[in-house]
């Protein structure tokens, strides 16, 4: 029976990841990139490829390490603890999961490049201010043997620097997912620096040419490919947010043990102790949902939707509480840019919106639970 505890391999992976990330991608890394006006560090990504992280969901025959979704969640969680700025979710989780649903030589080649770390992807779905894959207007009109894509996408995370785009478009009989180069003729990107110091682009498509080869999966049936990719991404994002909550919480508890006021450590005050303990409980409960989502995606992916939505809803809620309490318990210092808590707070807000907010996932849960 599947156990809701980490395996030896997962514990070792987490330890190794922590060791590497503390060295190579502490919060100071994100801060330095922000100060330099950048959102992506190719050198960091190349190192992650060498360690097999970019190929975590790439089959071995395509050169990946194929460690599975629970392992991807372990990595995402460790990255979340120090807010490591990487296109891990867009490329190694979402794009890789979409591509591996497709049995073509081209998809296999793309997967190999993801594992090598030589390509980055971004997922272009949103058109309004909320995640809603059902409600899109960008069209792919038939044009000879191919298509022409016209419309606009917003909040394309990592879209400012990604090499390729997965674009959800309306076709005659449904919606279709296209895999096209980000520098194709007719694509205009305006990268927008977001509050979390990462990147999301607004992208305009003006009669962008796409061939039948560029269709990922089947025309009019994007969801066969996109649903598993979205669920994988939502679970990994939930894991990242859980790591983020743990990172913020660790700093807060550390501060309670060193800050003195009224001649004593503020951690002796019951008002703060109980709030810290309550937050710890929320983190614990959310951790269980993350583990379960990873297990379900690995063992019973057809029925993972409930586990994934519970995980994403819980994780954004817990992360939000952790950063709000983090700033409040730090007091004035928590409000300064010099201190890192603001970076945690801003990333938590972006993570809450990306791939479905609380209401979206609560709706999924309610539907699957019969109300």
């Amino acid at each position: 029976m599947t156990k809701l505890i980490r395996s030896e391999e997962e514990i070792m992976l987490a330890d190794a990841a922590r060791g590497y990330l503390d060295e190579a991608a502490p919060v100071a890394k994100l801060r330095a990139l922000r100060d330099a006006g950048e959102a992506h560090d190719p050198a960091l990504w190349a190192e992650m490829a060498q360690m097999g992280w970019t190929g975590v969901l790439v089959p071995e025959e395509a050169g990946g390490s194929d460690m599975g979704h629970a392992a991807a969640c372990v990595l995402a969680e460790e990255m979340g603890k120090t807010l490591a700025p990487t296109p891990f979710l867009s490329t190694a989780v979402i794009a890789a999961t979409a591509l591996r649903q497709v049995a073509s030589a081209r998809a296999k080649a793309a997967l190999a490049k993801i594992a090598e770390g030589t390509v980055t992807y971004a997922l272009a779905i949103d058109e309004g201010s909320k995640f809603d894959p059902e409600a899109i207007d960008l069209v792919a009109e038939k044009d000879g043997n191919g298509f022409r894509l016209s419309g606009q996408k917003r909040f394309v995370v990592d879209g400012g620097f990604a090499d390729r785009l997965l674009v959800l478009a309306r076709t005659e009989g449904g919606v279709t997912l296209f895999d096209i180069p980000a520098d194709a003729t007719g694509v205009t990107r305006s990268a927008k620096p977001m509050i979390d110091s990462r990147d999301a682009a607004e992208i305009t498509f003006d009669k962008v040419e796409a061939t039948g080869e560029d269709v990922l999966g089947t025309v009019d049936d994007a969801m066969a490919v996109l649903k598993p990719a979205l669920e994988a991404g939502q679970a990994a994002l939930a894991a990242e947010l859980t790591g983020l909550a743990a990172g913020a919480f660790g700093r807060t508890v550390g501060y309670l043990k060193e800050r003195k006021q009224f001649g004593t450590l503020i951690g002796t005050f019951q008002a703060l102790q109980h709030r810290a303990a309550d937050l710890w409980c929320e983190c614990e409960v959310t951790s269980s949902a993350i583990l379960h989502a990873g297990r379900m995606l690995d063992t019973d992916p057809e029925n993972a939707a409930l586990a994934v939505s519970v995980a994403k809803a819980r994780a954004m809620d817990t992360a939000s509480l952790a950063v709000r309490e983090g700033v409040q318990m730090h007091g004035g210092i928590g409000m300064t840019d010099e201190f890192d808590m603001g970076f945690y707070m801003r990333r938590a807000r972006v993570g809450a919106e990306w791939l479905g907010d609380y209401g979206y996932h609560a709706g999924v849960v309610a539907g699957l639970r019969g109300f």
Partner: protein
Amino acid sequence: MNDDLAQFRAEIRAWLEQNCPQEMRDGAVGEDSTCWGGKNWNFTSDAQKTWLERCAAKGYTVPTWPVEYGGAGMNRDQEKIWLEELATINGRLPLQSFGIWMLGPALLHFGTHEQKLHYLPPIARGEIRWCQGYSEPGAGSDLASVQTKGEDKGDHWLVNGQKIWTSYADKADWIFALIRTDREAKKHLGISFLLIDMTSPGVSTKPIRLISGKSPFCETFFDNVEVPKHQIVGTENRGWDVAKYLLTHEREMISGSGLLAGGSRSLGAILAESGNLDEPVLRSDVMRHEIDGLAFGLTLERYKDQAEAGTGTGDASAMLKYYGTELNKRRQELIMAGAGSDALTWDDERAPHWLRSKANSIEGGTSEVMLSIISRRILGLPG
């Protein structure tokens, strides 16, 4: 190993099919639906009696206890299968009791072999019903300040004092109690864990009427009660160790009770039948409760897996107790809100359940005590 488990599942399924009476397949978990056992128990039906006897004969009332003490010797995976298969046919648990949840685990850990042989099988067969003598009028959250005293009289202790909030003391056959046997020692170090026959001369009980209109709790009085020396669990004056160990089991038991109440159906699905779930604020609260409840259920699973793997900590039960009881209180509020004025009469079961749930975050250690335990022992925050 998975083959073995599949085989085990098939055996359990076949046994249940043959042995679980139809009347016991209604998933009921109310106060008397599940048998509490003991000499004073009145079976609500022949089927309830038959069901208990058949399960007890196989050790299924206490599946994980060793066979020689009345259990079935199941491991955690097997127990899970037993519970899953029982849930599949909507079967009632054959027996519930404080003996199973609290005293049993403590005896298995601290008792002598003779004590286990003597006390555990009657619990497993539902013959003896136990109650818990912990709190006193002056010892609530500060439990270790209990004053009920036991004087050393050579072959027995002479016990005098009063316990309060003794659940079902008026129906129980025996009580496990914290008794001060050394008045000079520091408060945690002068307590012994004694087992006392409720029919002993000098023991009396008085039910306390609660806000729910029911009286599940009693005051229990000890007036020159003689307790033989062999009726002690663990070492004299070190009963606090037993008490704490037992409390972790009590807290885990209380933490899961709210989840069991709904069976496999979601609260939202149950409330939707009332037609009131379209109201957006209620619906939103129910959704949030559903998400938290599912995640908490997974946490109970995870902690059991941790305990089995030997990586758990006893202190974590404070978290389960705190979170589970607060969740159950939310659940009861939502049930009342969903039912509207339908649930405002005394002939409806919902109001008493709602009122009863308010004790969840008090009994077995208040939510505030749980948060203090987490703060000190898990987070390491200063005194």
